[in-house]
């Protein structure tokens, strides 16, 4: 009974974390883009005259979405049209279940792992769920029964399928280095030290793999340098025929993908919840100094480190989104098929050679 309760609490915590951060990522995006462009950004939403630099903006947006008319065009396929946003939302949201937020937490003789699903194929599960998200886009584009949404859906499918290959291949080298598909044991392996001082993070062992993964993952999020499925100045995109809360779901999915990509990137390449030189009982610095910490503080540090890393990569992705113009379609395909995939294959071969020496 208490096992079920613990799992339930974990699920609720992870969902709240994910949804709250997604909601506020919209605010961060608006503010960060404003700061980059010498503006101020959304700062007017207030409750009883209290503004706090526009922190209520996401709430106002959410309320607006709820009360907007949910319009389903007469010519659309109603059932699929309604299903599509939920599919794309669900398959992105469910990936959070395999991401470790921290190591084990010991309360009252019980060991609680700070992740929802600890299974041996965690990495495959995450990749599979991310690729299933394509169905949301294709369905949305197809069921709207509009030429432009169909074009957007097809573009999205083509782009995601091509980058899926690079995404998967870039991780093969990583799986060879940490021989495991279990996300929590990958993170554990990253806690060790290389040459006695460098944390054994994926980015140091697999720099090329990390770069390829990041590019491919950026393409997976369908945001600006790779926003061909949306392409608002040419085809308006696969969610043209959506409005109200259903469109809001598509938008939430976009931001959630940014978050998920960040968590995946840090879990695989930047040590997940690992704080450099910190093990289960405190800091052990390479120059010999030691700071021992109680268990609770250590877990807190781990969760904090996880969050900080996630925030950094969200920031980076938003920066990229507000720096670059959109690629042309053939450039996207060239980058995917002619550069990233050969590079990731070379990475696998190189890793194999180095490991066998």
């Amino acid at each position, binding site marked *: 009974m208490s096992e079920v309760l613990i799992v339930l609490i974990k699920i609720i915590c992870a969902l709240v974390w994910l949804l709250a951060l997604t909601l506020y990522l919209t605010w961060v995006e608006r503010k960060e883009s404003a700061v980059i462009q*010498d503006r101020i950004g959304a700062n007017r939403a207030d409750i009883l005259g209290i503004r706090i630099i526009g922190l209520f903006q996401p709430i106002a947006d959410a309320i607006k979405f709820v009360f907007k008319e949910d319009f389903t065009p007469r010519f659309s396929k109603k059932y699929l049209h309604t299903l599509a946003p939920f599919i794309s939302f669900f398959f992105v949201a469910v990936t959070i279940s395999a991401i470790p937020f921290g190591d084990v937490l010991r309360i009252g003789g019980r060991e609680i792992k700070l992740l929802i699903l600890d299974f041996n194929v965690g990495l495959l599960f995450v990749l599979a769920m991310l690729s299933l998200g394509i169905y949301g886009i294709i369905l949305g584009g197809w069921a709207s029964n509009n030429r432009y949404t169909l074009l957007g859906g097809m573009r999205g499918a083509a782009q995601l399928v091509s980058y899926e290959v690079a995404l998967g291949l870039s991780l093969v080298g990583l799986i060879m280095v940490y021989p495991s598909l279990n996300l929590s044991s990958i993170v554990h392996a990253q806690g060790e030290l290389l040459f006695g001082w460098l944390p054994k993070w994926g980015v140091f062992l697999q720099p090329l793999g990390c770069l390829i993964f990041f590019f491919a993952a950026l393409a997976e999020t369908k945001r600006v340098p790779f926003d061909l499925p949306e392409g608002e100045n040419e085809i308006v995109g696969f969610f043209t025929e959506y409005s109200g809360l259903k469109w809001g779901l598509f938008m939430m999915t976009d931001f959630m993908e940014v978050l998920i990509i960040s968590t995946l990137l840090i879990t695989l390449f930047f040590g997940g919840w690992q704080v450099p030189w910190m093990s289960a009982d405190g800091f052990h610095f390479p120059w010999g100094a030691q700071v021992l910490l109680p268990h609770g503080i250590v877990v807190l540090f781990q969760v904090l480190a996880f969050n900080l890393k996630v925030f950094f990569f969200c920031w980076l992705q938003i920066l990229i989104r507000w720096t670059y113009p959109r690629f042309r379609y053939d450039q996207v395909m060239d980058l995917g098929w002619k550069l990233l995939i050969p590079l990731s294959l070379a990475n696998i071969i190189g890793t194999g050679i180095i490991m066998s020496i």
Partner: protein
Amino acid sequence: MIKALGYFIEIIRGSIITTRHFVVNMFFHILKVLRIKTKKKGAVTIQYPEQKREIASRHRSLHRLMTREDGKPRCVACMLCATVCPSECIYIEAGEDPDPEIQKYPAKFIIDLSRCCFCGFCVEACPEDAIRMDTENIEFAEYSRQELIYDLDKLLG
């Protein structure tokens, strides 16, 4: 290959520019939160309804009709403004003035501001300097089009 490398360098340079803007602006924003006064600001935004931009001296804003010393409109209903108006939004009905010096006066003078494009041609066409666009009033939005039809009283205002 070398060309592609060149693009890559440009891509990095682009992100350095945006990062620089972010860091510099963030620095000034944080100074502002800490209530440290600086000459430079983190944003160039003018917070419109509270802060207003200075209106240039050559601006064009809401029309007004000029008056003579006795308070009557200076307009002689020559219709030049109504003729030159590209939006055809000026409607004038002339009336006869007993003063032989004046002869005509506008019995009705209506500008439909919902159609006016603020080109200022009416001001330039007027031989009597009877119409001007220098009220500095640029905030006269209304909820209905009816309220944007300004008649003689409102224009003499």
